[in-house]
């Protein structure tokens, strides 16, 4: 049988993070360090100038079952087209370890950069530059259950021209190879 692999969103303290299985659901990038599918209590404030940000979103794969094989060759990518709407962009990159997202709840997250998140492998870039033809390679493999590979961390960037309310939804993709029995 194939390995069972799930997409987890990590929130909370690095000492005891919450790892929410978001494989079958959506997750919102709000101005809070929490997963929700429809939360509005800590939305991102549209700025009068410059940009505001979501708290960065930490995602990682988890091998939940595996038998006599390996999960490897992990990739992350988008559909290549920003469908979030006017004034909204999204940046991200891989990270070697977990760093809890920070910011001012209900207003803005701290900007995702290599200073605020020292585990990033490189400066965040437009996630829509990562496509099926040119994905982000995620280092790591596993032959036993548990977290596998680097994180992919992303953040919404909200400009002054963004409209009120929830943005359109985007779907991001994880891909991996598996030789489990």
């Amino acid at each position, binding site marked *: *049988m*194939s390995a069972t*692999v799930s*997409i987890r969103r990590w929130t909370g303290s690095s000492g005891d993070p919450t790892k929410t299985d*978001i*494989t*079958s*659901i*959506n*997750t919102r990038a709000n101005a809070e360090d929490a997963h929700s599918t429809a939360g509005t209590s800590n939305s991102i404030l549209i700025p009068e100038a410059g940009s505001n940000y979501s708290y960065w979103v930490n995602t990682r*794969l988890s091998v939940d079952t595996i*038998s*006599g*094989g*390996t999960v*490897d*060759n992990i*990739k992350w990518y988008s559909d290549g087209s920003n469908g979030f709407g006017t004034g909204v962009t999204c940046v991200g990159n891989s990270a070697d370890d977990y760093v809890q997202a920070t910011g001012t709840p209900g207003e803005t997250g701290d900007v995702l950069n290599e200073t605020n998140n020292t585990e990033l492998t490189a400066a965040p870039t437009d996630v829509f530059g990562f496509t*099926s*033809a*040119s994905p982000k390679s995620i280092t790591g*493999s596993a032959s036993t259950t548990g977290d596998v590979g680097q994180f992919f961390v992303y953040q919404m960037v909200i400009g002054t021209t963004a409209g009120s309310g929830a943005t359109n939804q985007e*779907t*991001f*993709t*994880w*891909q*991996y*190879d*598996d*030789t*489990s*029995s």
Partner: protein
Amino acid sequence: MQWKAVYTDGTYLDQIEPSGNKNAYKDIQRDKLKYFELWDKDKRIISLRFFKGQRLIWRRRTILRTGQEKQVIHLIGKQETVNGKNYQGIIAVFEDGRVEVTGKFEEDHPFFKPVVIHEDEGEEWNE
């Protein structure tokens, strides 16, 4: 879908035996592999013939998108080196039975991207 390795001596190795016992991909005896097959229950989907010197590769390539059903593509490949030149053939078998074939792995292809070679798969799949 499950694989079945058929050997030159007529024996075979099932990924999952009728008893439920599971065999690992790395346990395939590559030196006497005659056919590598994919089965969907009792229906053989594809059978790939191997000759001496040809090396097998198989991966279950999985695509996960939040909130959507996962997509699985079985990649079966073989390569051989003849007079110093490398020859490859890769087949992608989709869960709906669709099959696509290419002559080599391609970095910028949506699903024929190169695999990470495992120790038991022999030498690197170089160009």
